[in-house]
Structures are given as structure tokens and as C-alpha cells.
């Protein structure tokens, strides 16, 4: 339970890596918006990880719809809102908004990004259906890769072969559609980089087990962006190496994300992006979001133990693996997804409950906040059972209904009230300066 007897103040310090994160993000958006002028094809990748699969096609600019929608929400909320209204007018309601957003965004009169090709890493159902609808609507070629989503104990060799075979087929299809050969050297480099980025991300999250937590999840949400659409690039690897070193330094020197940390929380599922400051609502109470499925399930490379524990994976170099051929790269990518990512286990409730109930212990969590997200059904699926499990363990939880994408879907004041009631139920009160 949270320590309410004394308000200790830890040292804090702005992150040195902050500017680099912003630069990568800004450059990515600029590259995306200017892609066609630069002679690139815009490749919409409906995925949660595995972006390096397409790194052998430098003539394509990756367009990650989830990230771009986040940007629109933050930078051009009117465009974002109008895009959702357009999507609803076309008859699409009560569905996954993250993956369908491009339908409205690309139809919008002020659309700056339009996909030429769509590929899907089919992890959850809405992904491939969204791609299908968008591709049909705009007449765009599309290719789905079916990613098996099974806990480790259920994986068989034929699942691995299935994924690798599809990867090979995807490369051949892209060669046909783009009229260019896959640059296998770039692919090897991209996969190698994505491996390291995802491992570093997992290690950074592991560092957040420390008290005080060096990062809070609002910071993390901004810092982790390059791990998605830019995961395969050399400068992303450099950035995460630097970030990892910086976070290690913060842990070694007791530098906190929140100076008055006295209560540690998890947030399950994606937060409401139009109201991301909700993740800071606890700061005046000394409550910090230190992790949760919204941040830990993809893309960090964690190995899931039999007891549900999350341990950062090793990089390819640490495993003694070198990538020389296309097949090497594709096998390594399949290995990253199937054996070194919690998302495979996540889609099944029993492993999910194990992961969360173990993680709350390992990250020394005092409470768990569950977002029943109307914008994404995949992440909160099964969380009611997890909530029951946490209750058995004596971990307080609260569930709130909102929308990770559509700001019209909730009342910010009411959300804030719910959060503050929860903090008070945890025995916290506002810390006077």
C-alpha cells in the first residue's frame, strides 16, 4: 500500500533524450507528409510491431496509422474530429478507431497523407478488416500477414513456418507491387535494428521497477514513438541506446519522474489520447503510472516466463545470431514476434492474468487502472477477469469507460473526478507545496 506518512521529495531532472525523441517524431511526420514529393510510395502498415519487415523497400515511406492518428489528435484536433465524423457517416461506428481512422483521414479535404499500398500484421481482427475496407474504398493494393497469437506453450513448429512463409510471400508481393527488388541487406539491417530497439525498450521498462520510477507513462508514451514506425532505422537504435543509458543513470542516482512519488500505478489498455494529461492526474497526490499493458505489451521484447514474469530479451548479437540472407532476417523477425513478445500471450485471458498479476508485484504497484476503451476492444479484452485476480491479491483497481481516440466519447471532468476518487480511496491526499 502507498506510504502516506511522509512526503519524501526525490530529485528530478528533465530528460536529455527528450529533444531527440521529438526530432525523430517530427522528421517522421515530415517525411510522411512529403513522401510523394520525395518520390516515395506511402506504405500504410497496419501493425503493432514488425515494421522492419518492410525495411527492404526504401522506395516506400512507412505510414503507421495509429501514430499518425495520435499526431492528428494532438496537433490538429479539428481534422481528427471531422475525420471520425466522416467515417461514421460512411456507416462505420462502434469499431476499432485506431485502424479505421485512415478511412476518414484520407477522405478529409485537408488530408495530407494518402496511402499507395496497405499491409497488415494481423494480430487482432479489426486490423485486417480495416485494411480491407480502406483498400476497397480507395482502390489500393493490400496484403495481410496472419500473425499467430498464441502463448508459448501452444506454439508449434508449423506456426513458425507459417509466419516465415507468409513473410517470404509478402516480400515477393511487394516486389511486384512496387516494381523494385527487396534490398535484402537493408532488410537484414532493419530487422537487426528492430530487435535491438525492442530489447532496449523492454530494458527501459525494467528500469522502471526502481523506486522512484525514472519515467512516468506520459513521458514514456512520447519517448517510445520511434520504436514503431522508425524501429528499423540506425538513428532510432542510437536514440534508444542513449535513452537507456540516461534512464540507467536516473535509477543509479535516484532521479524521479515525479518528485513526490509515494504511490505506483499501472494503466491497462491505451490511455485516452485526446486527454493524455489524465496520466499526470495523480502527480499532485504523489501517484505515478509506472507501467501497464498499454505500454508493455507491444512493442517491447519481453520473454514471458511460465510464471507470467516479463524479462527483457537478448539482442541478436547477444544471442550470437547474424543476419546474412533474406531468410535469416525473416526467421529472426518471426522469432521476435512469436517468442519474444508478450502480445502473443496477451490475446488469451489466462496468460494475460498471469502476466498482469506478476507484473504488479515486480513493478511494486499499489493500484491498477483499467481503461474500458471504446476505441480499441483488443486491449481491455479479458481485463475483467484480470481485475478479479488483482482483487484476490488485494490490489485495488478501478475501471473507467472512455475512448482512446475520440474525445467526444467522454467527459474529461468526470474522468478526472473518477481518477481522483480512486487516489483518495488509496488513502492519498493532495500534497501541499
Amino acid at each position, binding site marked *: 500500500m502507498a506510504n502516506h506518512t511522509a512526503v519524501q521529495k526525490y530529485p528530478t531532472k528533465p530528460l536529455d533524450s527528450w529533444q531527440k525523441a521529438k526530432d525523430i517524431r517530427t522528421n517522421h511526420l515530415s517525411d510522411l507528409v512529403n513522401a510523394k514529393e520525395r518520390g516515395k510510395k506511402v506504405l500504410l502498415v497496419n501493425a503493432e510491431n514488425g515494421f522492419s519487415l518492410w525495411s527492404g523497400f526504401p522506395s516506400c515511406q512507412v505510414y503507421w496509422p495509429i501514430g499518425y492518428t495520435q499526431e492528428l489528435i494532438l496537433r490538429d484536433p479539428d481534422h481528427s474530429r471531422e475525420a471520425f465524423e466522416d467515417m461514421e457517416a460512411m456507416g462505420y461506428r462502434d469499431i476499432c478507431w485506431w485502424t479505421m481512422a485512415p478511412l476518414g483521414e484520407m477522405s478529409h479535404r485537408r488530408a495530407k497523407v494518402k496511402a499507395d499500398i496497405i499491409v497488415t500484421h494481423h494480430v487482432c481482427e479489426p486490423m485486417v478488416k480495416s485494411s480491407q475496407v480502406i483498400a476497397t474504398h480507395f482502390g489500393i493494393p493490400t496484403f495481410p500477414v496472419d500473425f499467430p497469437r498464441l502463448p508459448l506453450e501452444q506454439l508449434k513448429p508449423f506456426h513458425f513456418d507459417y509466419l516465415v512463409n507468409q513473410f517470404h510471400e509478402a516480400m515477393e508481393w511487394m516486389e511486384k507491387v512496387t516494381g523494385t527488388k527487396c534490398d535484402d541487406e537493408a532488410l537484414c539491417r532493419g530487422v537487426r535494428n528492430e530487435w535491438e530497439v525492442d530489447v532496449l525498450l523492454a530494458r527501459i521498462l525494467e528500469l522502471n521497477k526502481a523506486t522512484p520510477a525514472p519515467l512516468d507513462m506520459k513521458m514514456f508514451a512520447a519517448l517510445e514513438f520511434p520504436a514503431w514506425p522508425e524501429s528499423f532505422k540506425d538513428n532510432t537504435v542510437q536514440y534508444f541506446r542513449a535513452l537507456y543509458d540516461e534512464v540507467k543513470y536516473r535509477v543509479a542516482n535516484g532521479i524521479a519522474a515525479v518528485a513526490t512519488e509515494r504511490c505506483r500505478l499501472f494503466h491497462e489498455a491505451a490511455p485516452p489520447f485526446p486527454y493524455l494529461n489524465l496520466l499526470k492526474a495523480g502527480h499532485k497526490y504523489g501517484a505515478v503510472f509506472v507501467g501497464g499493458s498499454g505500454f508493455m505489451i507491444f512493442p517491447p521484447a519481453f520473454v514471458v516466463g511460465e510464471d507470467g514474469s516479463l524479462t527483457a530479451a537478448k539482442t541478436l548479437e547477444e544471442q550470437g545470431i547474424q543476419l546474412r540472407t533474406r531468410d535469416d532476417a525473416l526467421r529472426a523477425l518471426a522469432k521476435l514476434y512469436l517468442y519474444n513478445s508478450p502480445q502473443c500471450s496477451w490475446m488469451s*485471458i489466462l496468460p494475460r492474468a498471469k502476466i498482469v498479476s506478476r507484473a504488479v508485484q515486480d513493478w511494486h504497484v499499489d493500484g491498477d487502472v483499467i481503461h474500458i476503451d471504446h476505441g480499441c476492444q483488443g486491449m481491455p479484452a479479458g481485463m475483467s477477469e484480470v481485475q478479479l485476480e488483482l482483487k484476490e491479491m488485494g490490489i485495488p483497481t478501478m475501471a473507467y469507460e472512455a475512448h482512446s481516440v475520440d474525445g467526444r466519447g467522454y467527459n474529461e471532468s468526470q474522468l478526472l473526478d473518477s481518477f481522483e476518487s480512486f487516489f483518495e480511496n488509496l488513502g492519498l491526499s493532495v500534497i501541499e507545496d
Partner: protein
Amino acid sequence: MQAIEKFHEVVNDRHRYGEEWKQRTGKRMLGCLCSYVPEEIMYAAGILPVRILGGHQPQTISERHMFSTYCPHSRDCLAQGLEGKYEYLDGIVHAHTCMHIRQAYNSWQLHVPTSFSYYLPMPPHLQSPHVKTVVVGEFAEFKRALENWTGEPISDQALDMAIDIYNTNRQLLRKVYELRKSNPSPISGVAATEMVLASLFMDKKEHNALLLQALAELEGSKPALAAKPRLMILGSENDDMQLISLIEELGTSIVIDDLCTGSRYFWNEVVPEPDRLTAIAARYINRPPCPLKDSLERRRFPHILKLAKDWQVSGVVIGHQKFCDPHGYDIPEIQTMLTKNGIPNLVLELDVTVAPGPVRTRIEAFLEMLEYAAVS
């Protein structure tokens, strides 16, 4: 019609049928949450597969296990398990379709004691050239799990027997559906729906015998309904007999469907091959798909259009389970396709129970549209 009354009895008292069958035969029964479960394999093992469906009664027992923002059918199925309605089942099997029903399966595993539970990861991308190996592999794993559980091997002869009985069932149901092409149809939509639903709960051998009887009774019988607007009903599962009866009571005849508790369940047969599991796998890969198994190329849409045209429907009622993402993605384009082909259509949002008043109003308005379309 005695056979049709028997189907009605089974549908309305399915648990009694299940309990009696179990007592009579001494054999095992497994509940299935999805029509992609390869029932032939279970039947070959001497196990009766029984489709788990909801009770269409208000309930709150599932609310602590599944948030109410998930599909009502899934929550209703879970409620049946938690309420002990399926106590006679020896276990539960699920073939992956969507995350909603997968939650129901997982929660059932956690809270309803069973001696066997199996999750079959049916891949979604059934058009992939690589998928057959995976599906055959999954079916082989499933067969092995059943053999371990029962302690008995499943022979090729047993599989042949099961395939034969299931194929006969599918052929007979197709024959009944063919009769519904007549105008007027000799059998009401309610009766036809109950006929198919009964097959989800009954031993197929017994169901086949009843189907033969029903076909004999239907031949030369007077039409159940005078010529009326002919409707098609589509969606995920739809066993809400109150809804289906209401639609027909308003002066229509439901003559065809595309439902997983309807024609999608039995439409295609297993084509024999030397390797039985490969043959069964091919059947499930090639069957009329649910939206989740319908990528890359849409095969469901031309199938729906063909059914609508072949059965000469005047209109289509699309049932959409609230919060169902997969069908939600298909519906706008299905509506566009039907409209382009001059087939009026109506979407009805469904829940565990439906409010008869508002549904009646919508159907009546839809029928007025059909009348207007007919005369203009």
C-alpha cells in the same frame, strides 16, 4: 408436421435433449462456441458436439467477467455456463474467430468446472496458400488431445463414418433450403430456423432421420405461408426465435439466410481425400466464410448476393450484434452491394433481448418500402 414439431421441441428444450442423450448413450458431450470447430473429429471420437448459444434472457452474471462493451451473444453464452445450464457437458471447445467469444471461452474455462477444454487456433487468413498446412496441423493436434482425453484412438473408419453422417445432414438441409426457393415456400422461416438449430444440438444421426421425415411431410404439403414478401436474414449467429417470429408475423416469409447458426453451418460438404484431416480441413477452409475469415478477397459478398438472387428475395434484414466489430466492418459494404443490385435492406441492432415494439416499427416501415419498391 410431426418432424417440425420435434425440431421445435428440441430447440426450446435443448438441455433436456442433451441430458437424455447422455443418459441414453453413456457418451461424452462437448460444447462448441463457434461453427469453425471441426465437429466431425469429435463425432468420430464418439463425442456429441453441441453448439452453445445464449438464453436471450436478461442476465447480469457475466458482467463481472466480461465488460458490457463486448458482444451480447458472447456474454449470453458465458452466462449460460455460469448459471449451470450446460452442466451435462463434459467440456468445451472453441475455434478462434473473434476476441469477444474467445473471452467467453476463457472465462468459462476459469469458472465452469470441466474435464476438458480446448482452444483451436483457427487461422483467420484462410485464403493464404500456406494456411492448409496450419489447419491440418491444428486439426491433428485437436485429434491427439481428444484421443488423450478419451483414452481411445480415432480411426480413419470412425472419421469416415462421421464425415458421412455430417455430409448426409448437410445434403438433407440443403434439400430443405432448395424447397424454400418455391413461391410460396412450403416451410416458414421459423420452422426452417428451428430445423437448423436443432441440428446444432442433436446427434446428427437422429437429426438426419427427422430430416428425412420432414422432407416426406413437406412434399405435397400445402405451403406454410401464402405468397408474401420474401426476406433474407444475415448476420453472425441469430437464434432469437422471438425476433424471427416477429418478422414473419408481420406478413413476411424468411426464405434464406447467411448466418453461422443457419446456412453457413451446413452449406458445403467434406470432399473425401485419402488423408481425412486434410479433407475436413478443406471443408472448413472453403465453407462460406464469416467476416473474420474473409480476407483478402471478399468471398462472402458474392455468396450473399447469389443466395439473395437464387432465392428471389424482396429484401434483406441484417442483424448486427451490438459491439460486433467483424460484422460491423462488412455491413456498410453489404448494404451498398445489395442496394446497387436493387435489393432493399435494413440493419437491426441486436442485443441479448430485443425490444419488440421498436423492432416491429422498423420492420413495418421496411415492408412499406418493399411495397413501394414493388409498385414503382
